């Protein structure tokens, strides 16, 4: 059984059909990259998987660990092991980063029937992850993402992922707006989490990130459909020919689904 199985997924937003029949299988241990130009539906796919309610699924199904993901609330999906790193992390004044993370971790542990973690146990683990992402400890007592730079916000997303240890991590354009140093740090954090029992879906516009996080599979999303799938070399080809060139090739040969 695949960890994630998307079958014929159709999604509309505000009356417009954005996803027009997506099929995708992701197994534990794999890293998939979904590439595509603006407006192709990449972020919509990520948001639907994270169970954002504004997106309306009109057809198809999504199974996560064999369970109906589309029937889950966002918090249930998270507790089952889905994590999305936001393209635009939200600022939440008045809630400290540390408090937020511990609340999230404990909510997930409680859902899985575990004990809550107290501050004494939480802190050492937290410090270790901070070090991994080269983040200043001072950021932790500040409000969630408030006053963080773009790079700090993205690193904060990966920090959350490192603490919550999801089964399926979806990175929604985590590379956008990052300078090369921040990109390396983010990639290091992500690579440290690759493991045989975890899958990752890396949504990106640019090939650049994929030089640091080397995917097992690359899918090209165009106008709501996966038009091509291949190995990491496909990302390089896209870099060379652009999405339009890929589209022409896709027309000549029927799309293969992963």
């Amino acid at each position, binding site marked *: 059984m695949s960890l994630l199985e998307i079958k014929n997924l159709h999604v509309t937003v505000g009356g417009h059909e954005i996803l027009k029949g997506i099929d995708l299988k992701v197994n534990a241990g794999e890293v998939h990259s979904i590439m595509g130009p603006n407006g192709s539906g990449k972020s919509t796919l990520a948001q639907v998987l*994270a*169970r*954002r*309610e*504004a997106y309306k699924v009109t057809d198809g199904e999504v199974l996560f660990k064999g369970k109906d993901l589309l029937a889950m*609330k*966002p*918090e249930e*999906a*998270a*507790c089952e092991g889905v*994590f*999305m790193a*936001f393209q635009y*992390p*939200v600022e*939440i*004044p*008045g*809630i400290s980063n540390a408090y*937020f993370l511990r*609340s*999230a*971790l404990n*909510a*997930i542990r409680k*859902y899985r029937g575990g004990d809550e973690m107290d501050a004494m146990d939480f802190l050492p683990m937290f410090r270790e992850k901070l070090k991994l992402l080269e983040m200043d400890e001072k950021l932790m007592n500040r*409000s969630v993402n408030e006053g963080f730079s773009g790079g700090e916000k993205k690193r904060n997303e990966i920090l*959350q992922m490192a603490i*919550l240890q999801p089964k399926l991590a979806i990175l929604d354009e985590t590379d956008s707006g990052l300078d090369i140093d921040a990109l390396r740090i983010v990639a290091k954090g992500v690579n440290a989490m690759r493991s045989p029992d975890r899958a990752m879906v890396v949504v990106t516009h640019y090939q650049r990130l994929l030089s640091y996080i080397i995917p097992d599979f690359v899918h090209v999303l165009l106008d709501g459909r996966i038009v091509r799938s291949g190995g990491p070399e496909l990302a390089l080809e896209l870099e060379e020919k652009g999405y339009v060139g890929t589209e022409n090739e896709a027309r000549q040969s029927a799309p293969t689904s992963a």
Partner: protein
Amino acid sequence: MSTAIQNSETYLDTFSEFEKRAGGHDLPWLRQLRADAFARFCETGFPTTHDEDWRFTNVSAITRTQFSLAQKDARPLSKSELAAWRVEGAVAQLVFVNGQFARELSTFDSLPANTKISSLQEQIASNPAAIQAHLGHYLDIQRDPFSALNTAFAQDGAYVHVRRGTVLEAPIHLLFVSTANNVPSMSHPRNLLVFEDESQATIIEEYVSLGSGTVLSNSATELIAGENAIVSHYMIEREDREAFNISTLRIQQQRSANVASHSLLLGGGLVRNNVHPVLAGEGGECLINGLFVGNGGQHLDNYMHVEHASPHCSSRQFYNGILDDHAHGVFHGRIVVHKDAQKTDAKQTNRNLLLSDDAQIDTKPQLEIYADDVKCTHGATIGQIEENALFYLRSRGIEENSARRLLLLAFAAECLERMKAGPARTHAENLIHQHLLTISNHVPAQGSASHDHARDERSLEEVG
């Protein structure tokens, strides 16, 4: 201005009876003070919504109710019944039952030297000159009928006198318990809090109910802060939903005095909290910080009247409101800058979260500036819980109700952060945490409407 008092004969009878027997009835000055105040009240009657100061708050339910003066002994209390209302770390707790001091229920852990903590009635009997020096000197009974009514029936309440240079680390807790009666009853607690030059203290004035019934608590507090005095005052309203609570805090600040007024309106049915500081000496600073949280059919009215009467003073008003169900909140922020109060720096901010379509907030700034070199700003926002923030929290595994509560706590935390760390703040924090649990456990119906609401958020920012 106002309609004649309904039940005027009842008030007249009640007053005539009271006047003859009240503590200090044999003191001519006090008798005069009460008589003048009652005369003023008879002239104006209760306010109506035609009065500018009461435009958003209809008190006709008070006007048409026949109240009798509440008796302390209406229901005997024991200390153990009050245990839940203790404030951890307070140096003393003065308990008032239906407005009258209950020495047997009060505790004085370790009375600090140079500090007098007692009841107004005891002081009137034993040391009337100290009372005469301040009582009624500051409260504006001309403009506010409830202040006039309070003064007419002024007899008991807290008396706190902190001598020059004395620093009290721990707060003094004034607990006002109203007990339910078979008939509607009213009490008029009158507090006199005097802080001499360079003293420092924290007062918690808190209103609670024992049982449910029609009760009017109409309190007035005169707080005098001497030169360089540093005073924090907390007003906490958490009475029963049937209670009417009208309170006025009149602050008189001398040169370089620093006063913080924190108000938490959580309980009560119809609540009006007036805060009226007068910055009478140069270099004074006043922080007026408040949080009001209403649900059901609560009406919570915050009326500020900040008077800058001297140069180089600053005032800050920060009020946050959370309103659910049919609750109605009011923030009326009046700032008056007198002719000579140059270099005044006055700021006012009111932020509101409306959790239901039927909740309502009226927010009104009112600036009257007679000096020419001043800085006055005001702003107000009205919004809903941010759906993006809610989704962000939920996407990390936090269940929807908890996520809502976290966001409400974060909104309330803006007010908590303005309080100095210590037992009073901890007390306030605990009350808010408990209270928000009851609000956030009820999730409003979600729909596409939430998106439109997000766009309703508006911000008014003006510089006058």
